């Protein structure tokens, strides 16, 4: 392992959270513009996080509460380590040769579980309700997501993300064109995964006081927000790797990830919120049907 890759390993989490938070800021700006507002500056989320880090006090409800943001960010950074960020000549692949898509799928949940445990220990019933809703919704979107991923893995005869990227060597070989059904199913799942408007019932601020994080404040919330930004970045990069053939430099990466970021954002602006069981069963109708149609294509 040479010095450059070690530097990237250290720097990548920071870049990831910065990019993720900035995307969220841009998202807020776009929402404001749709609503005929001026909107906050695009770095607003970064400022928010810095403010949270600068809070002087914090309370804890117990050991899991204290560790939860810590473990959550561990899970996200570990996921980031296994997702190839850039490919090609100046590839940034971190540890992605040592783990495949199945590992990424499972290690992604690690942080969420920690958050759920921390929320559980906060003793606030709203947090527990939020977690229960979140898990229910997760089970919903996981079905089309898994259908899409299995389609990709079977089609490419590999479970390694590196090889899936390598198979998409030219524009027309991108999986978005190669397996459009899988792409659509995965995109529906992405809406649920990002937790934007129609699927934000786990966090519904007006009903259950922002759900799982409702007891977290100060440094804990700061760590959680950093984690949120980084997690969004990881998911975006993973989708770009899977469907848009990865990126060869940072400019392309930013363009592609931002394109993906816009989709749930625009869907979210114009939609109200689903109820919990609707949010779950929604994914088992059209998204699953589309995914299964993709399956049949693979089988034939």
């Amino acid at each position, binding site marked *: 392992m040479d010095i450059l890759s070690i530097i990237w390993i250290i720097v990548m989490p920071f870049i990831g959270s910065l990019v993720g938070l900035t995307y969220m800021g841009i998202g807020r700006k776009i929402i404001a513009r749709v609503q005929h507002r001026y*909107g906050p500056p695009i770095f607003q989320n970064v400022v928010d996080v810095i403010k949270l880090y*600068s809070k*002087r*006090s914090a309370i804890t409800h117990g050991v899991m509460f204290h560790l939860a943001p810590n473990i959550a960010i561990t899970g996200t950074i570990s996921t980031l380590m296994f997702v190839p960020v850039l490919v090609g000549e100046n590839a940034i692949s971190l540890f992605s040769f040592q783990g495949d898509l199945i590992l990424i799928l499972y290690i992604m949940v690690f942080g969420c579980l920690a958050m759920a445990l921390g929320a559980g220990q906060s003793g606030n019933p709203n947090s527990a309700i939020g977690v229960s809703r979140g898990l229910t919704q997760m089970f919903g979107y996981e079905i089309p997501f898994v259908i899409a991923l299995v389609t990709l893995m079977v089609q490419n005869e590999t479970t390694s993300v590196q090889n899936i990227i390598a198979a998409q060597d030219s524009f027309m070989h991108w999986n978005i064109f190669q397996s459009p059904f899988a792409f659509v199913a995965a995109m529906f799942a992405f809406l649920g995964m990002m937790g934007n408007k129609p699927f934000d019932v786990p966090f519904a601020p007006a009903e259950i006081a922002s759900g799982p994080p409702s007891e977290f404040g*100060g440094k804990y919330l700061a760590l959680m927000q950093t984690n949120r930004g980084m997690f969004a970045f990881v998911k975006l990069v993973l989708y770009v790797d899977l469907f848009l053939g990865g990126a060869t430099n940072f400019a392309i990466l930013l363009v592609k990830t931002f394109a993906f970021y816009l989709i749930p954002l625009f869907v979210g602006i114009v939609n109200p919120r689903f109820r919990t069981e609707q949010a779950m069963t929604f994914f088992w109708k059209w998204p699953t049907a589309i995914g299964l149609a993709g399956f049949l294509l693979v089988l034939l």
Partner: protein
Amino acid sequence: MKEDWGKEAGNIISKWARKHSLWVLAYGTGCGAIEIPPTMTSRYDAERFGITGSATPRQADVLLITGYLAVKTLKRVIRTYEQMQSPKYVMGFGSCTINGGMYWDSYNTIKRLDDYLPVDIFINGCMPRPEAVIDGFIELQKLIDAGTAQGWVKYKENLDTYRANQKKVITNWKMPDYNW
């Protein structure tokens, strides 16, 4: 010397960040609460100054008290304030919080919020228009920048005085200790 420099830089950054990111917990007590939605939404758009609503006191920076406080509500407001994480600021909104306003001789509202919680800034008016509210926020930002929005320190230092005042009006005082 070097350490001072680091502290100084940290101070500047945190001041700047605190100033530009105010998460408001609007405790909609009196009639003034009606002015909060227009302040936040399209017409006046407070979000452009980094002012957003927050759902719980743990996450909030500013406690916005919009109007008269019944004694019963005061207890909840104190509780909410004490659950917030410092540094935290209190905004009194409307003349009711300043001197009782049109409720000055009411039997169960408090007159001066200042006696019970360390108010950093008052907004005058009955009720203040959104422009005035935003003006108040900008004033608060200036205070933060100047380092004079020290209500939370004051509260910690004079906790006994505040407690005595609070207990004078709230008879069924059954609350956990203050944790900041």
